[in-house]
């Protein structure tokens, strides 16, 4: 993988994740969680800007590419629930757990390898550790909370599992982070079945073009304008 491709993957993962998290604005289950989700969205957006700026103009990349030009994994573009328009907190937490664990691993590897992206990766890895911690705590609380929350969290983990292999480079290391969390959450670890991927090659789900349509609408309506 070229450095450009890697920066796009990391930047697009973070950007699309930030956009989905931002949909929770003023709709979280508690005010504290409104603050926390916004915080994580801001971290993701910040990381996206750093990585994209390594490759080109951050706004051109964010606002003027078509969906097949994005290199994010499918996981991040999925809605905040099994269905478009849903806001399911358990689903969002499972997405965050899967993503942030993968980000933490990728960032640490890149930082250790010392290439051109290493300084950025070292910086954002610290934030990822907080995201992993936040998602893990909620996974455990929901999994080991009420029967309803257990079932909802289990359904989210099950429903998203097929998307989890595309998210990381080193699946064994990723599983080593995830499995203890699921165990403490009293959640079954889903069986590995068929995999949903294609995002790294620009083959996305039907969801991404809707997300981009909303994200890009204003920027595209005023070509060349400054904001």
């Amino acid at each position, binding site marked *: 993988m070229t450095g450009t491709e890697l920066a796009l993957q990391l930047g697009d993962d973070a950007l699309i994740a930030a956009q989905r998290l931002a949909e929770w604005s003023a709709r979280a289950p508690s005010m504290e969680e409104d603050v926390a989700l916004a915080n994580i969205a*801001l971290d993701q957006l910040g990381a996206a*800007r750093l990585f994209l700026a390594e490759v080109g103009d951050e706004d051109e990349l964010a606002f003027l590419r078509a969906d097949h030009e994005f290199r994010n994994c499918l996981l991040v573009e999925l809605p905040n629930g099994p269905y478009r328009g849903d806001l399911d907190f358990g689903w969002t937490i499972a997405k965050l757990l899967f993503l942030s664990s993968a980000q933490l691993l990728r960032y640490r590897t890149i930082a250790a390898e010392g290439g051109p992206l290493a300084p950025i990766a070292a910086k954002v890895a610290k934030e990822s550790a907080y995201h992993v911690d936040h998602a893990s705590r909620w996974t455990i609380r929901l999994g080991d*909370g009420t029967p309803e929350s257990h079932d909802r969290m289990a359904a989210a983990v099950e429903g998203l599992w097929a998307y989890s292999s595309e998210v990381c480079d080193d699946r064994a290391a990723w599983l080593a982070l995830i499995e203890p969390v699921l165990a403490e959450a009293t959640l079954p670890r889903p069986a590995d079945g068929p995999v949903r991927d294609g995002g790294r090659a620009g083959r996305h789900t039907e969801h991404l073009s809707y997300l981009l349509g909303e994200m890009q609408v204003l920027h595209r309506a005023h070509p060349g304008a400054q904001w």
Partner: protein
Amino acid sequence: RTAEETFEAVIAADQKVEPRDWMPDAYRKGLIRQIAQHAHSEIIGMQPEGNWITRAPSLKRKAILLAKVQDEAGHGLYLYAAAETLGISRDELVDALLTGRQKYSSIFNYPTLTWADMGAIGWLVDGAAIVNQVPICRCSYGPYARAMIRICKEESFHQRQGYEILYTLSNGTAAQHEMAQESINRWWYPSLAMFGPPDADSTHSAQSMAWKIKRHSNDELRQRFVDMCVPQAEVLGLTIPDPELRWNEERGHHDYTSPDFEELMRVVKGDGPCNAERMAHRRRAHTDGAWVRAAAEAYAAKHDGSDR
């Protein structure tokens, strides 16, 4: 000295009343009402701006707006905590909001229709809020005064960001300039109405003044706001939509057209363009989150109250 004399002496000496001090019941109730309304306004106020986060036209602006809305949630949290020092729980206050027994600022019942509204809300709405709130930093109730100091610092940061959005739009393309002007046209009078009814019609004020909760009249603050905005509008290159607006040498202030207070009263009563939606949104978030809050409680109970 009696408890009441001590209280009066603290007020007279411009010192702070603290949670454990004795205070008159009406002082406590009035403060709860005011702080709660302020807290509710921060929480409801997340919605009109939240409406543009996913569509912000640059990543930098998206980050700034996300951070601003996050700050509002944070302000809500400080303020509910300040109210709690007066012996009421956050749950009770949230319930009072959701059932409509307590109000929030009527300004948030207007829709955000364009990106320029993110500028106008920052410049005008946050600007008016600051003019209202700076004197509260010297309010006689300690926890409220301290919360306000922190909030005002962040609000003036937000106001500058809003101003900068408008400045960029005003100096951008023709369409952007027009968008900025149209937004000011919609937000100017509702912002003036944020200072409340004219002094002649204002309730609560005299006692609040005596207790040093409030320090200036509605009309004084409104005038201060108008005088502050006029030169800023000039720098922005935008026109305040008031043909009567002019400098009055004699008064040393600008003359201006009062907002439509009947409209204000209608919006306060629930008949603004977005009252129903704002409340429905808040209730929906509260209801949809119930299973999550229940799970967190169940988990904490199982694990001896420890959080993992």
